[in-house]
């Protein structure tokens, strides 16, 4: 299966709507066949007044104003499906749509209040929920593993663990944080976190049309990184990974970078003997768009799951590059009410129906957005007696502790 990781060439973040066609990625828009694959693969394409194919057509005929004053682009959940399937290799998700969304955010008469609140919170508090930035590391006190917090103990660390918002604040995300810490300790990893100095990496705000806010968060986080000495960064969030891998490079980010899932997969041989508890369940894995379609990590999470003794892994109809988005990307995390009001099916519910159809007992995930999205969907659809949602790290720890 082809991966669609698109390493952005230098300059990709300098593209604007005005200079679009002076860059190779922009000129590629002119090669569009108008085949409509993008619209057909877009999870919300059917509901958009101007779906991706029409947007490109209108861009080429100078009718962009209509697109920018409609709310069509709010339905883009930055799932990379259009980009992955485009026969001409047009980078809609990474290049074209963010530029258009930025203009849309300026011309929309009203930004949906959930999204507005999340963006304002991100600027003021460094997290979308509007939680106190002074409580970002509060979860660490609930961890059975001592967590070193760099601002309190700034000695050099091997791994700087960038925990991210949902893993730090959401009660179920904190379960992932505690599980990750347990595995790190078991593997003898020398790790530390930034504590309350960490702020959201800002990937979703860029893809929801707020590059200025993304840049503010990037400049802040880069300053914090430079204060400390560490050998590499590991993050629990595919969205932060994506931001660091692509946009943060423009601000001088050159640290060794890994996603927690891939980092653990690299340590699998050390981890395998610790996985003692035998799992008697069937699991299906949801490919996160950011992690899979955009960065090509399809096998690492599956390898980790299959290392758990007794586990049976089954695939959903849409897997790997064909995955269906959970609906949380590109600002979608804060547009649930808006989508519901539009009469859209929640993508997390669409995905959970597919997961339940596999007959699996457990829906395994590796992105912190998905736990809450899928757990909500499981409950809304009435499947809470048939299926549970777990982060891969939680399943690994259960097996390590023999509590299955």
């Amino acid at each position: 299966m082809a991966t669609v990781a698109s390493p952005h060439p230098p300059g990709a973040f300098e593209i604007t709507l005005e200079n679009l066609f002076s860059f190779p990625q922009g000129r590629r828009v002119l090669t569009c066949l108008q085949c409509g694959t993008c619209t057909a693969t877009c999870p919300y394409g059917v509901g958009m007044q101007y779906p991706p194919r029409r947007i490109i057509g209108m861009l080429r005929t100078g009718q962009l104003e209509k697109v920018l004053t409609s709310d069509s682009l709010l339905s883009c959940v930055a799932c990379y499906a259009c980009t992955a399937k485009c026969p001409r290799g047009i980078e809609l998700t990474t290049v074209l749509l963010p530029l258009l969304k930025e203009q849309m955010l300026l011309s929309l008469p009203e930004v949906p209040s959930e999204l507005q609140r999340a963006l304002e919170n991100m600027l003021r508090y460094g997290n979308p929920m509007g939680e106190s930035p002074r409580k970002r590391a509060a979860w660490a006190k609930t961890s059975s593993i001592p967590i070193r917090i760099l601002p309190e103990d700034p000695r050099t660390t091997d791994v700087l663990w960038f925990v991210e918002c949902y893993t730090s604040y959401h009660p179920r995300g904190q379960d992932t944080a505690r599980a990750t810490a347990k595995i790190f300790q078991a593997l003898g990893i020398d790790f530390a976190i930034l504590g309350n100095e960490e702020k959201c990496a800002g990937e979703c705000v860029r893809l929801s049309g707020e590059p200025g806010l993304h840049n503010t968060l990037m400049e802040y986080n880069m300053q914090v990184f430079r204060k400390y000495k560490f050998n590499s960064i590991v993050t629990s969030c595919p969205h932060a990974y994506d931001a660091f891998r692509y946009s943060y490079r423009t601000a001088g980010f050159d640290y060794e970078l890994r996603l927690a899932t891939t980092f653990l997969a690299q340590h699998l041989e050390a981890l395998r003997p610790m996985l003692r508890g035998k799992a008697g369940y069937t699991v299906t894995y949801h490919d996160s768009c950011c992690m899979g379609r955009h960065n090509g990590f399809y096998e690492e999470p599956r390898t980790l799951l299959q290392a758990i003794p007794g586990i049976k892994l089954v695939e959903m109809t849409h897997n790997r590059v064909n995955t269906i988005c959970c609906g949380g990307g590109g600002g979608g995390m804060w547009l649930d009410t808006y989508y519901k009001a539009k009469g859209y099916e929640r993508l997390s519910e669409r995905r959970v129906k597919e997961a339940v159809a596999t007959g699996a007992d457990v829906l395994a995930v590796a992105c912190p957005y998905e736990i809450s999205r899928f757990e909500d969907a499981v409950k809304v659809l009435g499947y809470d007696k048939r299926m549970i949602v777990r982060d891969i790290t939680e399943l690994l720890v259960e097996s390590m502790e023999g509590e299955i």
Partner: protein
Amino acid sequence: MKIVVLLKMVPDVVEELEIAPDGKSLDTTYLRMILNDSDNHALEEALLLKERHGGKVCLLAPDAPEVDDALFAALAKGADRAVKIAGIDAAEGTRAVVARIVQALSTADLLPADLILTGAQAIDDLDGLVAPLLAQTLRWSHLSVVNQVRFDASTGVTTVTKEFPGGLRAEFEIKLPAVLGIQSAEKPPRYVPVAKVRAAMKSLQIDSTTVPIAAGMPALEIQSMAKPSAAGHAEMLEGLPEAVAGKLCDVLAAHGLL
């Protein structure tokens, strides 16, 4: 239409408020200040009026931590001028603060104006007196708890909608100039992208004015400040759902609610 909007920074309750060792004030160690919510609505209403009828929106705010951020954000949203009053202390009491605002309106050359809009209340005093005191001092018309301001350019008539309890609304025709206490704008305060705020910070400036302390004004003295103490506790019903449902029925029956 020339509109002056009065803005004020209040403690951000995202952090737990702590009492300072003097027992009379808030501990400012971790305290952050945020724009008072209904002042933000007053700003939005002023911007809507400007969009419909043209004119200028000028901002006047007592100096406070983080006030520059709030003022630049308001300029980025479309306000034309921002002035902060230096050396003002909210602890002077509302009457003294209003007296200083009146002076600042002159020293900063903000008068004449057609409207002065401000939040109907601020979360740190809830006395809602700024608008009426200011109107009385200036001898202007006044209404508060307003949620809509309409101006008919052809007739020159200004209509103000005011909210009452129980979902009632009343419309008033008001003579300008007027001071209005805004409860909420017609639509939620708009979003302003960070890039626009950054551009405003680079290209625009905030003016500052100083006015003397108003002599002979009655001032309030805070004698003590304390956190509310719990008077009673909620009873938690525990156990299996069936048992909890049974207990809940008993409680409701005991209170004559079943």
